[in-house]
Each structure stands twice: as structure tokens, then as C-alpha cells.
């Protein structure tokens, strides 16, 4: 984890105020085939965002729980969450799964407003992150997002990512 991200997390890490709410969040994050939706998270109230933020940073938990907590933060689009997700998405030292989740959360939560972060992720050295960014940009669906996808397609050499870019662009 990079020093900037560590400092950011330390400044924003909340205390667990509600054990029951944390348990409820972990329960939703443990679903086998039917993961929690935006509506499920919002039904838990605003307190859920703080718990998700804490879970996302809890190294004692499984990668899938932390990763899905990161995605869920996108359903609570506070500016502090955006900064956290943006830092996570561009951090070359972070786990690839968490970076992909941050990219999706930015796309889900901020849409066209996340274009700068998603376009940056489209240039990442991690091909799976580039593919995730392509998918997220495809969901944003604006002309600017399509321009970013076409620009990447012009230089992309990985077959899997090219396939994702092509599929995303053709779906418009």
C-alpha cells in the first residue's frame, strides 16, 4: 500500500459504532450467488457506508468481502469515498482485485463524473484493470467515454482487453 493511501486511510478510518450493523454488512458480503444490490445497501441506512469503509480496509477479512465493500461504497457517493476510490484505482501497489473494484465503484457511483479516473485506469499496466475500466466506461455511455475507449483500442495490444473494448463499443 502506498504512503499516500496509508495516510489517507488513517485519516478517514472510522470506529465501529454498531456491531449489529457491521454483522449485517458482513452477512450481505457473504452471499454466495446473489450479492447485495444498491437497494440492499441503502436499506441499511447511511451508517452502512461507514461500516463498508471500515470493512474495505480490514486486512483480517477475505479479499471478496473487502472487494465487494469497495464496490458498495460507490452506492454512497460522498466526496471522501471518491477520493479513497480514486487513490485505490491508480495505486500500482494495491491488490489488483481491489483496484478493479474501485474502478467499478467509481463508474457505478459517479458515472460521467468519474471519467478522469476511469480513463487513467484504462492506461494501467494491469490488463485486467484495463478491461474493468473499459467495462465501466461502457456503462457510463457518454460520447466522451466512447472516445476514450476508441483511443485505447487504437493502441491496445492485449487480445483480451481488445475484445472487451470492441464488445463495449459495439454494444452502444
Amino acid at each position, binding site marked *: 500500500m502506498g504512503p499516500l493511501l496509508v495516510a489517507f486511510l488513517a485519516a478517514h478510518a472510522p470506529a465501529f459504532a454498531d456491531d449489529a450493523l457491521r454483522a449485517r454488512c458482513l452477512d450481505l458480503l457473504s452471499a*454466495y450467488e446473489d450479492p447485495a444490490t444498491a437497494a440492499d445497501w441503502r436499506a441499511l441506512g447511511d451508517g452502512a457506508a461507514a461500516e463498508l469503509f471500515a470493512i474495505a480496509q480490514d486486512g483480517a477479512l*477475505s479479499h471478496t468481502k473487502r472487494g465487494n465493500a469497495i*464496490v458498495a461504497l460507490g452506492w454512497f457517493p460522498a466526496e471522501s469515498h471518491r477520493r479513497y476510490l480514486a487513490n485505490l484505482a491508480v495505486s500500482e501497489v494495491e491488490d489488483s*482485485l481491489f483496484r478493479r473494484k474501485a474502478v467499478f465503484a467509481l463508474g457505478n457511483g459517479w458515472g460521467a463524473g468519474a471519467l478522469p479516473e476511469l480513463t487513467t485506469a484504462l492506461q494501467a499496466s494491469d490488463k485486467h484493470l484495463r478491461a474493468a475500466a473499459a467495462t465501466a466506461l461502457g456503462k457510463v455511455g457518454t460520447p466522451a467515454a466512447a472516445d476514450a475507449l476508441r483511443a485505447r483500442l487504437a493502441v491496445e495490444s492485449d487480445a483480451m482487453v481488445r475484445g472487451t473494448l470492441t464488445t463495449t463499443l459495439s454494444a452502444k
Partner: protein
Amino acid sequence: MSARFVSVLYALGLVGAASLAACDPEKAPLEEGVEREELGTFTTDTGNAITFDVSPPSDAVSALVYCGPYGYDMLATAESITAPDGGSVYDLENPGATAMRVDTHSDILPMLIPVSPDLGLVSGTYGFKVYFDTESPVSATCTGVYRVQAVEAEPTIDLDFVFVGVDGIAPGLNAAEGESTLAAVVEEVGAAWGNAGLSIGTITYADFDGNVDDYTILDGDTELGTLLRTVSGDRRTVTFFFVQEITNNEGVTILGLAGGPPGLAAVGGTSKSGVVVTTASFASDPSEIARIMAHEGGHFLGLFHTTEKDGSQHDPLSDTPQCTTDTSGDGVFATNECEGTGADNLMFWTGANDGMSADQGWVLARSAATY
């Protein structure tokens, strides 16, 4: 060399995946004990349904009837199933009236009798009516897979592991540490299924021979069926594909997906022929992988959620409690709301429990994949 001994050698890094699969003389496909019947190709009537009869062999202990493939853009389910004596096995209008469950599926519709000891398979001719969610005429081919092997008091299941771009887990990659962790995972799966009397037999290991990049991060909506169709041969096993991650269209990780439920046991090459497992937590929480495997394997073999997330459906078993209380009123039947009413069961929709019931063991023992 016994399969278990080979597996131990594998876990110790002393044999590779290829040699394990190739050198085990006991690992022949277990075709004996299962019969197949092509029931025919049927075209929908004006009610968008097809009707056909199924007469399992008199010594059959289970009948897996499936129709398809009819594509991923179409859905089908059973409208009705009638028993040889004319009684109802399943009625879409009143699905909770009998100890039977048929879900709605794209591409292939699997229907398994029995899925509960309260409604066992009997000798005679069953009538099936399958409804398709389309106004256009549809032709679908239907097949019966009958297990005619007697039920064992201590049933066994063989497993096929296919590694799809999962460094550190796949044989021959980061060797000892990952392999010993995998052995521990398998032990946990065996312990969970052991609660229902099912033992793990032979395990084969192989690397995915297709394009790993296309599937290691799997789109659960569009790529699951394509991956499962790579299961080759009509083997009496459960094939587990280990991928880095399954995602949905919002980028959320799905822990596991099974063909079905029920999966097409002893049928290869279909979109319902196996199970896919997310391994992202292999290093941080290997027990999670074990739970996913045991849970999804349970689906493949014919088990349903004891209670669904929204409480709308339950399994058809009488000895697994049904959770009917959403005290918080948020539409989610959570673990803390279902304590004592099924949340401790492996087949609850979420959680970290491994409880299993006698009825669940009864169903597992009758799958065409177990012996």
C-alpha cells in the same frame, strides 16, 4: 496406487497435475449405474409449452430430465409434472404444494426427481409440461438421465478440478504452499459434506486448456455457460472450475455459481455441467473457498437454498427449517434473523456455516454423480 495416495503425493508437490490424471488406473469414467434416454424433440403449442412423457427404469433411484439447449435469451420452467398415479408432482401455479422445486432457467431446463424424500421417484410414466417465455414457436430436445445404481449407505463423490488462470493454486505453479492450502480446502469440503454422509473419492487436476484470459475473470451473466460447456465426457463427477473471480454487470464479485440447481450430473458439454468458484480469497481466507465449493456443489447435486435471500422460496425438505421472519423489514432474510431457522445450514443463501440435514444427505446420495 490408490487415488487418495496419489492425492497426498500431489498435495506434497511430488506429482504434477498431468501425471495425477493420467496415472491413476482407478480413474475410469463411472458410466455404469447411469442410463440415458433421448426423449425426443418437441415443439411448443399455442400455450408456449411442450408436453412429453418420461418412464424411468423401474430400478431407477433418480431421474434427471432436461430440455435444451434453447439459448441464453430465452427462459423456461416446468408448468406441471404429473406422477404415474395422476397426482401432482409440481404445479407452477402452486409450487409450494408438493415437495418438488423447479427453477426458471435460460438455455437448459433441468428437472430432478426426487429433490426430497417426501416425494420419491416411483415406477411408471410421468407427464411433463415445460413452459417457454416466448410467443414464437420453440423446438427443444429433451433427455432423461436415470441413476439405476442402488443407493449406497456411505455415498462417495469424485471431483474434477480445472484451474483457470489462478496463479498460486494451479498445479505446477507456486507449488508447496498453495498446494497444501488446497489440500486443506478439500478437507474442509469433505468435512461439510461429511455432515450429510457424503465422502470425497478421487480428485483429478488439470489446467484449463482454453483461453485463460477469457475466463479467469468471468462475467457471470454472459460467460458462465460457455465455460461450463467445456466439461468433456458424461462423467459421474462434479467439475469445479477455479477462476480468479466471477463478476456481475456492476463489478460485484459473485462467490460461486453452479449449473442448475440441479446441475446436469453425468452430462458433459452443457451450460449446466459444472461449478465455478471465485478464488480471490484463497490466500486471505481459504475456508471461504471451501464453503463456496461445498455450497455450490450441493446445488449441483440437487440441493436448494433452505431460505432464499428475499424469503420468497425454501427448499422442499421437511427437516431443514424455513426462515419466515424479516424482523428488520428490509426485505433481506439475514443470518441473525434466521438463527434456529436454517441459518446454520450450508445451503442457507449466505453465511459461514456447514450444517447439513439427513434429508439433504438423502438427496445427495441419489444424484447421478454420486455412487
